[in-house]
């Protein structure tokens, strides 16, 4: 019923909340919301709410990159956040979201990971954990923004006698780029951004673009049904344009 209404509205060029097709909901970024974490951020896109927390642990480097810190991104879709989330290990949607955000952060080279070496066989492991608090649509863009915002305020703790002194910091995490994720959604011949959960039910397909401040694309992921070749190209232009708006929110923080 609701889906039919949403879809008829979109057909007329309107959205339930009165936004334009390429207009974000109100976006709020709050840094440092978790005391125990080395970095954190709470991000809201309208009613969607995501928290990202960053923990740093002394880790062993990956064998193929012995002189670099490691990055692990994980996402939890806990059952508090939606009637469709269930307890248990991450499902394919949570895994996909975490992996796409992981690639955006990694491939953008935003973290200077060669500066995260502590000593022989010892590097900082940067663990980004995404916790969805309320799924009111467009988790991908919100979770990516929360992750980047959290990394931007992440501090490196002091180490004394091989162990971490939590709460005492020696430096900021070396961050040199600010990628953001913009997801373009297709419904029939129309393209929109930042769907609500009601809109997500009728969206046919979407492409998420991770884009750096120098307009370099660092991650792309298509989801759902097919998309005409030329529409993909159209989405690339729109993603670039919209990434600037998201990044200005990040910078204003």
């Amino acid at each position: 019923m609701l889906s039919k209404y949403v879809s008829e509205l979109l057909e007329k060029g309107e959205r339930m909340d009165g936004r334009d097709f390429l207009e974000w909901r109100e976006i709020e970024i709050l840094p440092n919301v978790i005391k125990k974490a080395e970095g954190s951020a709470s991000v809201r896109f309208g009613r969607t709410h995501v928290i990202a927390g960053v923990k740093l642990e002394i880790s062993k480097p990956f064998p193929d990159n012995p002189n670099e810190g490691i990055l692990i991104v994980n996402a939890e879709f806990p059952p508090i956040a939606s009637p469709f989330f269930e307890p248990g290990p991450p499902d394919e949607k949570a895994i996909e979201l975490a992996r796409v955000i992981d690639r955006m952060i990694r491939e953008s080279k935003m973290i200077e990971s060669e500066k995260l070496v502590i000593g022989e066989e010892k590097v900082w492991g940067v663990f980004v954990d995404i916790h969805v608090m309320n799924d009111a649509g467009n988790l991908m863009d919100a979770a990516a923004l929360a992750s980047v915002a959290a990394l931007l305020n992440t501090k490196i703790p002091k180490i004394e006698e091989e162990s971490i002194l939590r709460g005492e910091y020696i430096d900021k995490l070396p961050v040199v780029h600010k990628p953001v994720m913009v997801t373009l959604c297709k419904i029939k011949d129309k393209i929109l951004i930042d769907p609500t959960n009601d809109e997500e039910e009728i969206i046919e397909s979407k492409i998420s673009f991770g884009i750096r401040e120098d307009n370099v694309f660092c991650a792309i992921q298509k989801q759902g049904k097919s998309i005409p070749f030329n529409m993909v190209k159209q989405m690339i232009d729109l993603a670039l344009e919209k990434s600037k708006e998201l990044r200005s929110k990040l910078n204003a923080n």
Partner: protein
Amino acid sequence: MKKVEVLKDGKRIDGRGPLKMREIDVKLDIISRADGSAKFSFGNTVAIAACYGPRLLLPKHLQEEKGGIIRFRYNMAPFSVDERKSPGPDRRSIELSKVIKEALACSVFLEDFPRATLDVYVEILNADGSTRIASTNAASLAMASAGVPMRDLVCAISVGKIDDTLIVDLNGIEDNNSEADLSFGMLPSKDEVVLLQMDGRLTKEELLKLLDLAKENCLKIYELQKKVLKGKYGVEDVE
């Protein structure tokens, strides 16, 4: 990380030119118990796909009245890689299974078989880059060979960028050392994109060029897939 020189004097590590695919080998109906099956290989990357159904989906509460569903699993054999891969699904294979499943679903008239499932499974026997691409091509052929009602074949290819050179069909070493790699799949006769993933760093211009390059090469895969299927039914190529 040890920098591997993957491109030298315009030649790739396996001697190919930048725009050349590896040798492709395709065989149909290699698994007699399956309704349709296929092998698709790019050089040393070997994917085996089998298709079962459409068949009744059980348990019943999973059934959908509006149409059938596709179940798909991408799986790497433990011996297919340098360091033994521990058996069973990991995060990578769960993501790839989702992405390939969605690509294949675009090609099938799922609405024609409510309450049913189409089960498509791929095993990677030997991995040397572009395994998701070989899997997608193999799966689509297995489905076609099983006689599944389809809008089109799904054709896939990987493209990428190394030292400012655009390349087609990445092998394992290139995959690990490229500045960008893009996995792409489409329904050629519909001009629709069904698979698109990229990681690396690309400008908009490079991205657009890679998309065109990917599409051009998908059309080559398409011709090959059609030829193999026509061969199965003894249809002469009239063109």
